[in-house]
């Protein structure tokens, strides 16, 4: 199967290791990965600012770039949710050639590749930062709001395949970190208060390493943590599913 890899714009520029881990993870599980160089951004920053007309240009470009692949996979639940939930509203039928075949990396590994074991190890205490769009739009896990439904978590299921994995439990397992794209700038005070609470939750659980399906949460949380010398480490989930963390 030919997999078109979509690397979010900020991951391309600032978190190349998360992108490379995604490539290796897919290749190690037999996927024929291609990174179309023409790709740019899913358009979410513009759509969330209320400028869906400006987002439409980026969305159409995404559709043109990726419609020829069997699957489109991305290490970002938020960008994938943008494609699956917002593209049909923004570019209409044009979106249909990508919507049903675009996957976040965890759901792709479990639901399409059907991964049952991984070559990875970790000796750190790990907390999962459940990114909101992954949880509540892609349904990568049962959200805490829906306790009457059967419990599952795709990121957790994969992390549990890592040798030596010790996951810690948070008091608020899927509370938003406060990033929210431009919200992190527009509402800087609330955004940072939310992030600080999240860091405290990681620390009361004695986590050493925080992993997430989205680097955007980690950019915000990591930025707060580093400013306050909290001593936490942050990594994209692909880096842990494909690495040895001593």
């Amino acid at each position: 199967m030919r997999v078109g890899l979509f690397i979010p714009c900020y991951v391309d520029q600032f978190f190349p290791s998360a992108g490379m881990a995604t490539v290796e993870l897919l290749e190690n599980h037999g996927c024929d990965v291609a990174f179309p160089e023409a790709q740019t951004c899913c358009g979410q920053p513009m759509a969330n600012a209320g400028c869906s007309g400006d987002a439409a240009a980026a969305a159409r470009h995404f559709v043109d770039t990726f419609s020829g692949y069997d699957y489109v996979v991305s290490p970002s639940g938020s960008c994938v949710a943008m494609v699956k939930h917002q593209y049909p509203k923004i570019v209409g039928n044009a979106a249909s050639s990508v919507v049903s075949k675009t996957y976040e990396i965890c759901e792709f590994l479990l639901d399409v590749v059907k991964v049952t074991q991984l070559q990875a190890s970790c000796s750190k205490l790990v907390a999962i930062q459940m990114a909101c769009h992954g949880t509540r739009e892609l349904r990568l896990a049962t959200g805490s709001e829906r306790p009457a439904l059967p419990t599952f978590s795709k990121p957790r299921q994969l992390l549990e395949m890592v040798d030596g994995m010790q996951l810690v439990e948070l008091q608020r397992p899927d509370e938003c970190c406060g990033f929210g794209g431009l919200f992190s700038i527009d509402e800087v005070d609330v955004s940072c208060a939310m992030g600080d609470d999240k860091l405290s939750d990681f620390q009361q659980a004695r986590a050493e390493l925080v992993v997430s399906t989205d680097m955007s949460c980690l950019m915000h949380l990591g930025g707060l943590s580093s400013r306050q010398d909290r001593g936490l480490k942050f990594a994209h989930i692909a880096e842990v599913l494909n690495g040895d963390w001593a």
Partner: protein
Amino acid sequence: MKHPEAAAGFVADSAKSSWHDQALWGVRTKRDAAVSAIPEWEELREQGARIKAWSLAHLDDLLVQFEAQCQQNGIVVHWAADGPEHNRIVHGILAKHRVKKLVKSKSMLTEECGLNEHLEAQGMEVIDTDLGERIVQLRHEPPSHIVLPAIHLQKEEIAETFHKTMGTPADMTDETELTRAARKDLRERFLQAEAGVTGVNFAVADKGIVVVCTNEGNADLGAGLPRLHIACMGIEKIIPKFDHLSVFTRLLARSATGQPITVYTSHFHKPKPGGEMHVVIVDNGRSALLGRKDFRRSLGCIRCGACMNTCPIYRRSGGHSYMATVPGPIGSTLAPSKDPKTHDSLPFASTLCGSCTDVCPVKIDLHQQLLAWRGELVKMGYGDRKKIRSMKLAGKVLSSPTLYKLAGIGARIALRGPRFVLPSEAKKWLTNRDLPPVPAESFRARYRRHQK
């Protein structure tokens, strides 16, 4: 003032903001526990959502049916197109009965219409009888939450208010003692009142009855003691059949406070012997909202407050930061339909985390509505113009591979250089946060090497 500035004021007192967050998270936790005890919860939400959708689609017929049934039961029905007409009608009924003192149970509709101010200006005394509402009334503040109106206040602040207004001892800060003091004061006022005004939780079309849910029994005393009962409702409170009521009473209290049902769920069928009962049905912008397909589902709201309790922004910024009758996610989608200019920052006071949508007992797509409002507001010419201009530029750059590559190189160079050349957005980020270390190579550069 816009939401970010108002929120900053509340967040600045980090101890209080954190206490507020914990208090409401506690309510959310109780709601989760109540929900997990109902295996069919998600089906119940679906039923609630469908009944509301059907009711809104047949609102015209249902309202007429409701009016006819009420009249048959001896209830007088009034229609008000807007807030001022509602206030005139209520005042007219009270004036006809020479009412000077009245008691009122919680009603967000009368809050929205400014009924208290209107009646007080005409020389009437209005006493709010819900404990939380009474507290904020004594402080001349609006409620900060629709179910827990005084949730922004700590008991010491309430003790001070009671000391100043009711003469309780200054050091009396015990919750039970404060509640007893308020109850004693309110009992007198119930006995003196010549009329009782209540809100309406559900108006049952096929029976012509109104259902009022409280935990304190204050609506029952207010409606039961005086001869005159006036119930005020928005047009969207209609449900088609009595058989549908249990779906909502099961959803409402569990979502609001985690109780299986409100302590008092009272059905008002007809006036008491020798008394009068009036129902005032108010539009005040609701039929206009019904005409907006992206937003009409917000009219299904049963005012449980669950979206406030779960909202991580509301919990930290407090209800007053919204500067709207109804705060939180539902308020942020309702308010712009009334006055987009004043409330243009509210749909942006969200990370679009979606928690509100998933707790809503009638499945209103709240975070999708907030996103849709952002687009509407930009189209209407509101919102931050500078940001909109930068989005236009971003749209151009991010749809062109060449411009995108150049911008990426530019950003990585700029972030390595001196901070003063950065745009104001980056500076705002940097007030409390570091930026990630800039890597030597972008992903695409590394990928090219990987391929070789």
